[in-house]
């Protein structure tokens, strides 16, 4: 079994770590709240962001062409990739044409989605992730578990051990400042040697061809400005119309992501450095098809802040790896089934549908609504187990009939009270696997109400 519930159960086996994970992400969520409350008109700002994105998606072809034209005018080279494989090929071609072998990369969920690293490694090209969290998981050979905090599942003792083994740091020194300094020295060397720097893209501005990248560490800039060749990889949905729209998104992004007023660096790249090359690769990989699906189109508004993960009671208690998709959490559970509805059919069910994700989303994606929509679509495609299907059918009948409902309540109360434990806590009772059932009341609410308050009864005048 590779479904979410199974992997979540494995994550929860280490109770101490699971509790730490839950609390830490909740702390980030609270920091986000303080920031949101501090901005006058925060809700109007979200609405504005949502409208800009909806508009951009409705004219995406025009804006992409405008962006391309401006970028070429600025001196950049623009490439188009309809699939993940095409993106990898284009990057490989650029590297080969320039006889390069030393590559650094800053955070890019898109290249993660497209499998760029394994593709290049198979061809003998080493690619170094330079975001500290990403470098940690790269050395550990693990996928990210969060889109903003990729190593949030790893403890400092493990990082200390890893750095001692891989980077020759002091054995047993778990001081985060020391470990970060070790990584700084190690990666500084990589920056200075690199011939090609690859980045993701937060925003692409149609009116002036700017590529905007936001980081706290400064790793995108160290890479881009040190290497002669810079490559920016962007999904087609990253383009926004105007420079003034950037104000809306830069105000929302870091506040929603980590509770900072803005990231340390908000970099605008328009042309290559003297003697350098600037490549922009525009990637589709299924996105243009998603635009056509009205119920799900809004998921393309996502600016990858991770707020929906930090707030999600299921994500916080199951960890990013339990989703087994490149983007975990609520937004990932909407996006994953588009790439493969069979493999990821269980993800839309990994939610309590509490709606907290939609409440914090800076671009107002109706995340829990889409999760609910997916459940219906997937159920029609036969995603539910025959057992669950049967239970639903019976429940539907019972809930539709007054008499059946009253009777089944009585039976259930009697059974829980008098039947032996082994019969009740059976394989079908998944609730009872980790928890005790509640104590059974003597009577139902309806019975109690009728007895005490119904007109004509002794207490009816109260």
């Amino acid at each position: 079994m590779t479904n979410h519930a199974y992997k979540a159960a494995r994550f929860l086996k280490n109770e101490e770590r699971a509790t730490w994970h839950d609390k830490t992400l909740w702390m980030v969520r609270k920091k986000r709240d303080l920031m949101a409350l501090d901005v006058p008109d925060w809700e109007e700002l979200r609405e504005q962001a949502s409208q800009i994105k909806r508009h951009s998606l409705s004219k995406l072809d025009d804006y992409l062409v405008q962006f391309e034209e401006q970028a070429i005018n600025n001196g950049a080279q623009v490439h188009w990739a309809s699939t993940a494989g095409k993106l990898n090929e284009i990057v490989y071609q650029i590297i080969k044409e320039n006889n390069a072998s030393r590559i650094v990369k800053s955070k890019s969920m898109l290249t993660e989605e497209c499998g760029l690293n394994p593709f290049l490694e198979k061809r003998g090209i080493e690619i170094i992730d330079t975001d500290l969290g990403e470098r940690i998981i790269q050395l550990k050979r693990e996928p990210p578990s969060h889109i903003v905090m990729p190593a949030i599942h790893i403890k400092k003792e493990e990082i200390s051990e890893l750095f001692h083994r891989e980077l020759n740091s002091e054995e047993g020194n778990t001081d985060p400042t020391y470990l970060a300094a070790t990584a700084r020295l190690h990666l500084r060397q990589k920056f200075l040697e690199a011939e090609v720097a690859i980045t993701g893209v937060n925003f692409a501005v149609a009116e002036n061809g700017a590529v905007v990248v936001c980081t706290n560490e400064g790793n995108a800039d160290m890479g881009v400005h040190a290497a002669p060749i810079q490559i920016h990889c962007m999904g087609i949905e990253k383009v926004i119309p105007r420079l003034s729209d950037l104000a809306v998104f830069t105000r929302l992004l870091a506040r929603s992501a980590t509770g900072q007023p803005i990231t340390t660096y908000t970099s605008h790249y328009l042309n290559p450095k003297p003697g350098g090359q600037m490549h922009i690769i525009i990637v589709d990989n299924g996105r243009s098809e998603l635009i056509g699906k009205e119920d799900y189109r809004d998921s393309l508004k996502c600016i990858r802040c991770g707020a929906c993960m930090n707030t999600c009671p299921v994500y916080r208690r199951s960890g990013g790896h339990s989703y087994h998709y490149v983007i975990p959490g609520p937004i990932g559970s909407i996006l994953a089934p588009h790439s493969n509805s069979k493999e990821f059919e269980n993800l839309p069910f990994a939610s309590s549908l509490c709606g907290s994700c939609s409440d914090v989303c800076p671009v107002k994606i109706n995340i829990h609504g889409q999760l609910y929509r997916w459940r219906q679509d997937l159920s029609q495609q036969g995603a539910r187990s025959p057992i669950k299907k049967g239970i639903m059918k019976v429940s539907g009948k019972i809930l539709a009939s007054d008499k059946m409902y009253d009777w089944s309540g009585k039976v259930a109360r009697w059974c829980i009270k008098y039947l032996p434990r082994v019969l009740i806590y059976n394989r079908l009772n998944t609730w009872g696997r980790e928890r005790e059932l509640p104590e059974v009341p003597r009577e139902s609410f309806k019975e109690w109400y009728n007895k005490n308050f119904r007109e004509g009864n002794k207490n009816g005048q109260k």
Partner: protein
Amino acid sequence: MDRNKILLNIQRSRIKPVNLPEPFYSAEKEGDKTTLFKEILLQTGGDCIEVNSTEKLNSLLDNNFRGATDLRRNELFKNFLSYSNKDSLERLKTVILEGQFGVAENGSIWIDDSNFPNRLIPFINEELVLCLDAKQIVRNMHEAYLRTDNAISGFGVFISGPSKTSDIEQHLVYGAHGAKKLIVVISHETNLV
């Protein structure tokens, strides 16, 4: 080929047009912009020094940052290209740059190609000093992008505090890859009689 394929695919699912909303200007917090700027700058891990004249600014920089590379000086800026390979840049300890304008709501400062002769300079040093005229502080990002007047070209960046990371158990560490320290010197011109 991929270009047309992607564009056609988008056109095929042509959706109902949605209007582009007018640029947005939100109401802002009351209060003095410089005070707010300073407050947020300190929160982001930056340091702040205030001076009230150009002479004071220059003497402060001379005294406190002796040996710093002051790229506000024209001669230095112009001659810089001759020795700006990566390894010599790596040896820069303290760099002083002119900041173009600050943003009160997030304590960031805008600089672009006109402020440094090599794009690595704001990032590769140990300690970055940005000088800012108090009159050049705008309230928020809406005003900030208006302020750039659509004239962004080449490379430009908002910098807010020193480089930082929280990737190890959410412990905040300054100096991930870029400058470990950021000092903003705000000058108030008080020589208006």
